[in-house]
Structure formats: C-alpha cells, structure tokens
C-alpha cells in the first residue's frame, strides 16, 4: 500500500537509461481514515459456521479467529508499530523499475560486517525488528564488539512498503540481483546475506549469482535438496536409497511443504484469493495464521475440478 505509506510512486518509464540511483529517507504514516476504515471492517466481520471437527484439520479454528479479531478490534494499536518502525532509519530506492523499501541500521562499531536479511511469507520486515539491536549492538546483547553487523532489511517486491510489480518476472532470481544492487548502492564492497522461507530462496540465489562483494550466506531454511531427492519429490522418481533416518524425515517434510495449500492457491490463482484477502481483514488474518500445520500431510483424494497432489 504505497499510497497509504505517504510516498509518491513515480510512473515507471521502463527505461534503464533513466535509472534514478537516489536513496530517499522513508517514514510510515497511515492516515487516520485508513485506521478507522480497518476498525470499521473488523467490527463488521461476519463469521462462518464453526468447523465440524474438534481439531485444526479443517484449518484455523473459529475460536482462534474470534480471539484474534476481538484483540485487533479492541486492544491493538497500529500507531505503536508505526512508531517502532519510524524509530529505525528507513529508505526507498528504485531498482530495476521498482521502488524498494528497506531498513538500514549501521552499527556504531568500526568494521561491522554488512548483512542483508530477507524476510518470507506471511512475514515482512516486522519479522526482523527484534534482531536489529543484538546484531548492530552486540556488546549490549551478550556479544562482542567484533560481532557487529551493519543491517539491511529490505521489503520483498510486492510486500510491505516496496512497490507492487505490475508485470510478471519478479522471482527470486530478479530479487537477488536487486539486493546486490541495494548493497552496491549503499557502498558495501564486502557483505553477507541471510534468509529463511522466501528469504532463503532469495539468499541462496544470491550465492549462486555470486555478485562482487558477497562473502557468504546463512540460511535458516534449507530449500535445495540434492538432485536425486528433488527428482523423487517433484518428478515422481523413486525415493533415493540409503537415506538416513534424518534424511528420510527431511524428505517427508519437503513433500509436505510441496503440498502446502497456500502454495497451491497462491501459486495457481493468486488473483482469485486476492479479492478476499484485500477486502476482509479477518479473512487475511486467518490465511496468514495457516502457514504450516501437519494437517495437509495426510493423503487427500481429488474432488471435482481440483485436488491436492497425491500424498
């Protein structure tokens, strides 16, 4: 929602010769009327009937959403979040035709190692706020001065305060190239990268691209199993022999990940689900809560015009 963020989205010229290298300071201020509108929508939430099971096997349970919506409508204060964000140095810069938002916190320690951390779905830069202090000011958080990092936390294209692409093609490969440009534009000649979830995809892609200055990466989600395992997972090849117990568990988890429902829907029809998620705060909240559960690992059989991949 760039317009609610209070900065102007320039029309895209689509010309690389016009590239604007400017880095602009950024602050978030959602207008009062938008907050009132959200409150109005939350208060007007219409609920579905309760799930017909006693567990989460049909999805997020009604009591959970009722509790969430009640808190969102009565106890929650967005301005607190806004103040927390605006206490950090934030910027935008246009890369590859798209406005990229990022938090940039320099350590006070000399020789801090520059680090770019990429969030995932259903997250945003908000996932990373609690690591800003420990990483940039390690001495105050049980570390040593020479553990210090300069921190860059970008919003993925289409997420948070970065622009929403109006054309296809912003895959991890293109995002990884943009991140190298962010670090270059910030003047970093030696840096590292980190990520989990979608951030892991961007980060390991950066490592493959190996831009000048990238010294290494850290992942908290491994997404590139060996080729024979990949073939078994996605191509129907036989399960490789000789897997250890730990590897077999990882194989099963990868399979479950592949079957994950939100990947299917967001991978096939992001626009269709989009009409609901943009119009219903409670629906959006439920969708984001249902990131990972064991429920979809069970075998499911096809139904009319749709079915999960066989387990």
């Amino acid at each position: 929602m760039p317009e609610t963020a209070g900065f102007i989205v320039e029309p895209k010229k689509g010309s690389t010769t016009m590239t604007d290298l400017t880095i602009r300071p950024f602050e978030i201020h959602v207008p009062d009327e938008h907050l009132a509108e959200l409150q109005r929508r939350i208060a007007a939430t219409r609920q579905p009937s309760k799930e017909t099971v006693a567990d989460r096997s049909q999805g997020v349970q009604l009591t959970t959403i009722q509790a969430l919506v009640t808190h969102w409508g009565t106890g929650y204060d967005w301005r607190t979040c806004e103040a927390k964000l605006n206490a950090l140095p934030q910027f935008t810069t246009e890369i590859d035709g798209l406005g990229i938002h990022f938090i940039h916190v320099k350590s006070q320690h000399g020789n801090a190692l520059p680090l770019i951390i990429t969030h995932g779905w259903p997250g945003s830069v908000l996932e990373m706020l609690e690591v800003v202090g420990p990483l940039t000011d390690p001495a105050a958080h049980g570390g040593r001065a020479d553990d210090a990092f300069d921190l860059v936390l970008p919003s993925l294209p289409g997420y948070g305060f970065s622009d929403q692409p109006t054309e296809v093609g912003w895959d991890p490969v293109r995002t990884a190239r943009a991140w190298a440009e962010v670090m270059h534009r910030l003047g970093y000649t030696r840096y590292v990268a980190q990520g989990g979830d979608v951030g892991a995809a961007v980060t390991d892609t950066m490592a493959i691209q190996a831009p000048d200055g990238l010294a290494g990466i850290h992942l908290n989600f491994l997404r590139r199993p060996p080729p024979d395992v990949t073939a078994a997972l996605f191509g129907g090849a036989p399960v490789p022999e000789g897997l250890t117990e730990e590897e077999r568990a990882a194989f099963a988890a990868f399979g479950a990940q592949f079957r994950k429902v939100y990947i299917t829907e967001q991978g096939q029809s992001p626009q269709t689900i989009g009409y609901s998620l943009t119009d219903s705060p409670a629906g959006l909240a439920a969708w984001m809560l249902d990131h990972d559960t064991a429920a979809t690992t069970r075998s499911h059989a096809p139904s009319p015009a749709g079915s999960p991949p066989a387990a």
Partner: protein
Amino acid sequence: MSTGTAGMSADPAVRPFHVDIAEEAVADLRRRIPAWRPPEREPVDDQSQGVQLATVRDLANYWTTEYDWRRCEAKLNAIPQFTTEIDGLDVHFIHVRSSRQNALPLIVSHGWPGSIIEQLKIIEPLTNPTQHGGAASDAFDVVIPSLPGYGFSGKPAAAGWGPDRIARAWAVLMQRLGYTRYVAQGGDWGTAISAALARQAPAGLLGIHVNFAQMVPPGVLGHIRNGDPAPADLSAAEKRAYDQVAFATYHRGYGVIQGTRPQTIGYSLADTPVGLAAWLLDHDTGSYEHLAQLFAGHSFGAITRDDWLDNTSLYWFTNTPTSAARLYWEQAITGRNFYAAADLLLPAAVTVFPEEYVHAPHSWTEKAYHNLIYFHEAEKGGHFAAWEQPQLFSEELRAAFRTLR
C-alpha cells in the same frame, strides 16, 4: 458420526418453505459490495493468475447497481419448496409434480459452486414436456434438494456428510414423498451423490443419469497420481481425458484449499461478498471465460448475470461458503478419487457436454458404468449444462430415462 440411521428417529414432517431474507441482511450486502477494496490488477493479460480484475469490477458494478435479490426470492417462492429433517439435518428441497399421470419421479443434485438456482430452468421442460417440445409420456415429477451445508439446507455441525451420507438422505427423502419408483440425476457433486445412491441401490431407484462421468480406469489413475506421462496405448479421446483430469487434479487451487482448509478460506468468504463472488467464478477455465464475457455484456447460453448473482447472493445470505466447501474436505478424507471409474451395476445414462472440463470418452465410460443404457455427446453446453442449455439438458434426460419408465 451417524452410521446409516437416516430417518430412523427423525421428525418425518414435510414443511412448506418460503425464502424471506431479512431486510437488514439485504441492506448489509448493498453496503459491503461498493465498500470492497480491490487488489492491484493482475500483472498478466489472461486468466493465468486467476479471476481478472476487470471481470470482478464488472460483476461488482452490476451487483451494486442493477441486481435485485427480491426478484430472485419471488422466483423461488413461486415454486413449491419444503424442508424436512433427515438424519438430524434440515433438508430443503424444491418439489414440483407434473400434471401428467405416470410422471417419472426424478431427484436432481446440484454441485459446487452451484445450488438449486442451477436447476430452476429445467423444472418447466421436465414437468410440462408438451409445452417444451416433448411428449406427455416424457413428464417427470422433479425433486431438487439443497445439499447439506448449501443454500437453505442445514449446515452439518459434525463431520460425516460426504456423498454417501447425502445419498442415504436422498433415498429417505424420496421414500418420505411416497415415491416407490424413481431416478436420480447429477453433475459435479451431483454425479458423486447419484453414483453413491446407485451403489446403495435403495428400493425404488431405477437408474441414474449423469452429465459428468466418473470414468478414469484404476490403472490410468495411478499414472495421474504419480504425475507420470499418459500410458502409451491411449486413444486420442482417452489422451485428451487423461490430460484434462491431470490438469484438474493438480491445477485447481480452490479444490485443494476446500479439500484441506475449508475453515481457513471460510473466514474470507463469509466476510467479503466480492471475494466470494471471485471465488465462485474460478471453477474451470472454460466456464470462467464464458462468465467473464457474460459480465462484459455478452451471453452465456441461458445463464444471465442475474442468474449468476442469484446463486452468489444465495451463498452470501445463507453464509454457506464454508459449509459448502467442507464437502471437498469430506471427499478428501475418504481417500477416494473423484474421477475414478464409478463402477456401477444399476442402469446408468451419460451425457457428455462438449465444453465440460473433462470430456469423458465412451471407451472408459462403458467400463465404468457396467449397465450403460445411454451415452450421448450433446451439441453444446459445458459444466453448468442444466443452467446454460436447459432445453437440450431436458431432452437428454427424456432420452436417457425413456427405457426405464
């Protein structure tokens, strides 16, 4: 979960039913539609990312400015409707008797994303055939129930209402209406329910007609399940069906979601009418293209914009998107494949409509329905055949059931 006690302790009363949605609910919908917050436009020029923004804008605009729910209500209330409790659940149904003696009783089951609204246009041609190009001897008495969790039927509070249990309820319903000889019909979920009914073979059921054949042979299903290439020995028609079933199996996001997380998507669909409308548009690519054209001002057979929004509004007012979606979950937990060969002994008739998303080949169909009494490829029509081509559809039913009368 009840096990086959349908009707044993139920209140056998059949009560007349009238639709009367509260004015505040109608006003609330009128407020919500124009207040919708659209997402940004899809970054592609086709339907590859789902329902396109221009179509949803057209629909929302028409829904706000032209559409009148009370017109739908009047149309429904002009038709005899009833409810009766079966197996602990209120079942709503339309029941229109033909004025002809010896009319053949017929129970028609709708599917998703439909409702009884899909079937309204076939009531007249089926009950009053002489006014619609048929013979007096073609007449049917028509029973059109709302599936459990759909429309004006009750929403199950506990799991267990899959096609088998629904079929048992239908047999109770026909018995309660005093029918001792009858036939059943359906496409989409209606085909699964009609097939379940035929497998149960309750006293009085003579046979079924389906406009969606469940016909994929077991060996071929294995290939689809494993994502393997089609077996080499398939005919051209079989190869086409293979590709269509494989696509439907892996590339319909809504089916996966409703099969696994109906509750999660339910919070959205209960809360946003425009989100619900988009969700119901995205059934199969062929139907979607027609519906997008419909809301752009073109025609889609007999289906009008008002018809489509009658159905969408019915889902909204009854707040049934979630309970309807749970039918996919009920099917999924059985582990049975929807497209698997029906394996039926009772007389069965099949019509293949050319734009159906799976085009059933005769070779597979005759093996799936062991007593195939009728097989015909209709001239035109797609997934919503009864709605889109009511005259053709009615003619198919007359021809299909002629030998069972």
